[in-house]
């Protein structure tokens, strides 16, 4: 008697659960459909196109050609991105550190007000500003010559990898600083005061207490900046005339002049790989932190 009732019970469970699952699915469906149609499918399609020729046969030809044709641009992209990230990290740590530890109230207020401005300027305008600032007859050189800091004949154009690094950094520093300064401000003040109290000066306090505690936000900011830099087309197009240049330029070139989606997608593959690696490093870091916490 008891076994039959328990059987009946165990049989009843799935029939009761089934509608709940389908109801849940129904709720998720619109979002899921949007993600599949707008993100997953185009991504998968571009990945597939990177490995197929015009007749639809599987091939690694595009990838090999992309590397042989644009290997230098890939290295250039990695180099520019790394240098920009280093510059972004250094300056945003300095700004956020001063915002948290600064003792001159008006300077802190001024900095807090100033640093956000580039956030509201689009990449294409940033590119235009950088062009007129960094060119041979640009504002930077003019100011240096006018103030007598530099002879006019030694003025040179910064419209190369240096210009790219400076422009990317200029555009992305406020964003990373916003995240980092927020994380630093959220640290319990007594953690900082305890360090000062046992003898840490402000610099050591920044690097040994505040930064380790706020590091996850720095990583997020840098990874998102990397993605933004690898996807910015306007800035490299406006700043760099010849080769090598950023991959986005080359992808656009490949598509607009040759209609060659295969190689463009093979180049895209490399961008995915690069951001995926950084995302993986970030996930590992946070997981390790959570495991020890």
């Amino acid at each position: 008697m008891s076994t039959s009732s328990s059987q009946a019970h165990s049989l009843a469970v799935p029939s009761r659960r089934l509608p709940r699952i389908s109801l849940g699915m129904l709720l998720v469906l619109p979002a899921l459909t949007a993600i599949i149609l707008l993100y997953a499918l185009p991504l998968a399609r571009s990945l597939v196109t990177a490995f197929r020729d015009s007749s639809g046969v599987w091939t690694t030809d595009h990838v090999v050609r992309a590397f042989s044709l644009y290997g230098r641009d890939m290295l250039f992209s990695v180099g520019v991105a790394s240098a920009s990230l280093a510059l972004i990290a250094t300056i945003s740590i300095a700004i956020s550190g001063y915002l948290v530890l600064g003792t001159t109230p008006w300077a802190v207020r001024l900095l807090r007000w100033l640093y956000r401005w580039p956030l509201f300027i689009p990449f294409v305008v940033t590119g235009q500003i950088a062009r007129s600032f960094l060119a041979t007859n640009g504002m930077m050189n003019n100011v240096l010559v006018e103030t007598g800091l530099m002879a006019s004949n030694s003025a040179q154009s910064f419209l190369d990898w240096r210009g790219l690094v400076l422009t990317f950094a200029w555009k992305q520093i406020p964003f990373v600083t916003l995240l980092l300064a927020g994380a630093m401000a959220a640290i319990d003040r007594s953690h900082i005061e305890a360090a000062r109290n046992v003898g840490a000066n402000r610099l050591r306090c920044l690097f040994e207490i505040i930064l380790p505690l706020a590091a996850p936000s720095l990583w997020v900011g840098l990874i998102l900046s990397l993605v933004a830099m690898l996807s910015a087309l306007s800035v490299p197009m406006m700043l760099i005339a010849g080769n090598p240049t950023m991959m986005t330029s080359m992808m656009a070139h490949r598509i607009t002049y040759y209609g060659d989606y295969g190689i463009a997608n093979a180049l895209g593959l490399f961008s995915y790989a690069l951001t995926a690696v950084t995302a993986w490093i970030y996930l590992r870091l946070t997981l390790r932190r959570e495991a020890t916490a």
Partner: protein
Amino acid sequence: MSTEALTLNNVTVDLRQQRILDGIHLDVSPGSFTCLLGPSGCGKTTLLRTIAGFTPLSQGDIRLGARSIAHLPPEKRHTAMVFQSYALWPHMSVGDNLGYPLKLRGVPRAERKQRVAAMLERLELGGFESRAVTQLSGGQRQRIALGRALIIDPPLLLLDEPLSNLDAAIRRSLRSELRRLQKSLGITTIMVTHDQEEALQMADQIVLMRAGKAVQIAAPQTLYQQPADLGVARFLGVDNTVTRNKQDPAVASGAATFGFRTRDARINEPLCSATLTRKGRVTECVYTGDGYQISLDTNEAELFATATSPITLGTFAVLQVPESALIPFGPDDRHLPPLDRHEDIA
């Protein structure tokens, strides 16, 4: 570093045009235990933070031993502070937390390890070096925070309500443990607390603060028996005040008001001479463990007393306070010096 005396001279702090601390003078002798006691918002934590260097002085001077520390940044003051939240760094292990002050002083790694281990033994947390601070209980965190402060042999120990986040039993045991440790190290200590029992039990000297001022600086017995004014008295558990009648005992000349504690007032006991008596209707009778607390509605005020057995509500009862338990206050609410014959109070 040997323990040192602390001298506060006219310490005044203004924050956003508001006076937080108002001309505080205080002498703390080397090796003594001083409590800053007062209700929340009285400025006691600000005073501690001012000594540690986290709140800038507007006026006055702070001297540790012979040197003025008023204009030094916190890291150069060599005061050791234990924060209310303990402020252990979550990204460092227990060992790293304890060793960090030594690392800052350039102590080599091997010696650091040895001193951290010795400190953990002393705190009865031996072998805890590699634990994460997030895994510790409240009491353990408290001890690590204390160890981190003491590991550098500071001349001055500052404690910001170090026991307030712990439950009652741990608090009681840590109270005596802390006091023993302080005595054995002979370190000058200043502790902020809002708990009068804690202050009375632990301190050599209590600074009673109110609205940014040090209202009374005295030894625990003096503070308890001769509170400077009615406000201080109320904070220290003097729940009852009555206006003086002609037939009341003459504890002090010119007394306008008497204060007394509930536990000193008895109900319905045989009348003795030299006592203060008031008659009233019983409005409440609450069991307190030791006996019953009775609320008595007299014409003048509501008074509290203790009784050994319950008393029926609504009946009339007589409250009696021995002369020795009466605290006299003048018309200005300030404490009056008792007459000479009451040497036990003085």
